[in-house]
């Protein structure tokens, strides 16, 4: 067991985290032309802890592996190696009925409310399906629970017999949330839950998720590409780049004083809805393109685009380690950009 190195365990009086991710690796084999096979290093040695009742925001750009990591954590996909502990149960070693039972407490909300609902099922059946799958309730009792959870999610319980196409995008996302909530889970992975929605609807869903968290004492892993939404939703933020976590810390600290140059670049790139502030702000622009996860760069993966890279950055990979109280970064020159 390598749990001794997990920072939360070295301090006294700290409750153990609800979810502990240890050195998780997820590789996808792809066929690469006539010469056979290559490997996509989607998630490459990620360790994280998520405390009970908190929202951990996971932010990064497309292709960084954040969605894959979310799916591996709830075991929608098996990890290539590494461990995911949920209340000290190693999910990566569970199978069959035991895995199913543990999973009952972990649910997922997806980005696309159009693709994640079966168009041929009535909304009541979509939301009741987890109840039936786990043999929790059937018939009248299931219906009562479904109507209750619809009410909680801001849906009209009389619409139980309607089909997904009869609902707007925002309402469909509420259906997705209701389905995740009906099993009374403790932990929810939300993968870009608002990015497909119109601006005025995004606020409805963000507010709903915050209310539900308070009401049911939920723990969230909130995955998104937009640092402003992630900052708004999260207690702590983890920043991901090319399969690796490059920085973790409390939301305000990460925003106000990024330690990793990539975090700084992200923060400077997000526009602020204030023309006076924007007039004095210039983004730090990155040169080059995001490298391929098939053949990631040596040393620090960000060194090919980092404005302050030094020779050591291409030679030695900086470990994700504590730099300040409660803050981790994987950088040889933290806070220097």
């Amino acid at each position, binding site marked *: 067991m390598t749990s001794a190195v997990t920072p939360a365990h070295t301090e006294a009086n700290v409750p153990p985290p609800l979810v502990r991710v240890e050195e998780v690796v997820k590789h996808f084999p792809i066929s690469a032309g006539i010469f056979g096979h290559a490997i996509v290093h989607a998630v490459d040695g990620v360790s994280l802890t998520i405390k009970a009742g908190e929202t951990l925001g996971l932010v990064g750009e497309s292709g960084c592996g954040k969605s894959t990591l979310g799916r591996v954590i709830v075991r929608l996909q098996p990890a290539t190696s590494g461990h995911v502990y949920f209340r000290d149960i190693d999910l990566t070693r569970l199978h069959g009925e035991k895995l199913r039972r543990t999973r009952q407490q972990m649910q997922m909300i997806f980005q696309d409310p159009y693709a994640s609902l079966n168009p041929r099922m009535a909304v009541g059946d979509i939301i009741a399906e987890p109840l039936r799958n786990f043999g929790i309730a059937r018939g009248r009792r299931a219906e009562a629970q479904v109507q209750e959870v619809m009410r909680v999610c801001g849906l009209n319980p009389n619409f139980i017999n309607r089909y997904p196409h009869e609902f707007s995008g925002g309402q469909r996302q509420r259906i997705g949330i209701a389905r995740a909530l009906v099993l009374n889970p403790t932990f929810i992975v939300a993968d870009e839950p608002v990015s497909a929605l119109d601006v005025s609807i995004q606020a409805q869903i963000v507010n709903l998720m915050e209310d539900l968290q308070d009401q049911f004492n939920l723990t969230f892993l909130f995955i998104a590409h937009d640092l402003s939404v992630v900052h708004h939703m999260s207690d702590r933020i983890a920043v991901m780049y090319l399969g690796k976590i490059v920085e973790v810390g409390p939301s305000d600290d990460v925003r106000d004083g990024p330690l990793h140059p990539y975090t700084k670049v992200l923060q400077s790139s997000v526009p602020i*809805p204030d023309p006076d502030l924007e007039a004095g702000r210039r983004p730090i622009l990155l040169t080059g393109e995001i490298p391929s996860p098939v053949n990631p760069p040596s040393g620090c993966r960000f060194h090919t685009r980092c404005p302050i890279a030094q020779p050591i950055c291409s030679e030695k990979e900086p470990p994700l380690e504590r730099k300040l109280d409660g803050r981790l970064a994987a950088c040889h020159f933290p806070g220097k950009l």
Partner: protein
Amino acid sequence: MTAVDGVSFEVDRGETVGIVGESGSGKTMTALSILRLVPEPGRITAGRILFGEKDVVHMTDEEIREFRGADVAMIFQDPMTSLNPVLKVGFQVEEAMAAHNRFTRGQAHDRVIPMLQRVRIPDAPARVRDYPHQFSGGMRQRAMIAMGLSNEPSLLIADEPTTALDVTVQASIIELLRDLNREMGAAVILITHNMSVIASLCQRVIVMYAGRIVEEGPTRAIFKNPEHPYTWSLLRSIPRVDERTHEKLVSISGLPPDLSNPPPGCRFHPRCRYRVDRCFTDEPDLIDVGASQRARCWVLMRNVLAESKTDR
């Protein structure tokens, strides 16, 4: 269905104007109308579109062909829909010039690499021979902008040019549009749902809702003192990365209306938290509410906010 209803606005030479609205607000249709590109069976049923002295609505086919691309260029959200996948990028930029009469074939050929350099495509002399699939999303959008600007148009219409891109790439495209607007003097109409991008790039903003302009004015004025409740709510519905205290976002309840059957009175009244009786029956005009700021509202946020102050 009336997708765009009685929309009037002007764009000055060299100006940057943002049109902001949600899906179905009519912002894209407005822009397509400027180029007379409204998709079938849609039609421009009334109104005029003046480019200088010329009325675009009554141009001949020959005139409109020269107008599109040479006087006004448009770039879209997904550059792949506008780039031909089987032709080299450099060739497509050259074609854009050859299709019009500003440059000879020889001049067009010589201008390709400088145009790609102008939009900051690194290693342009080598990359002219690449195909679009060899470009990243951000680079494709740059290539599109190079095509659009190759004939030195006086107006560039950008329809959600950064929506499909990552934030760091979005930032670089916005910077590029800002620089090109300064260097080349082309006016820019930026169509977006993202208020923050408008704050970063545009001098003036037009807010559309359900086919109507509900508010317009200088960007600073609109962001500091929005008078229409829709604009006000929209600005408070987005989390700001610089927020100091955690406040609940203002959410706008309900949905935008079905435009084949728009609500009577003010089109926003079913979702408006500050509506009064009159809003249900009479549609307000776009009236002056400040220095070149206009809003279409019976109530106006200044009155709402003044009242809430006296309440306290």
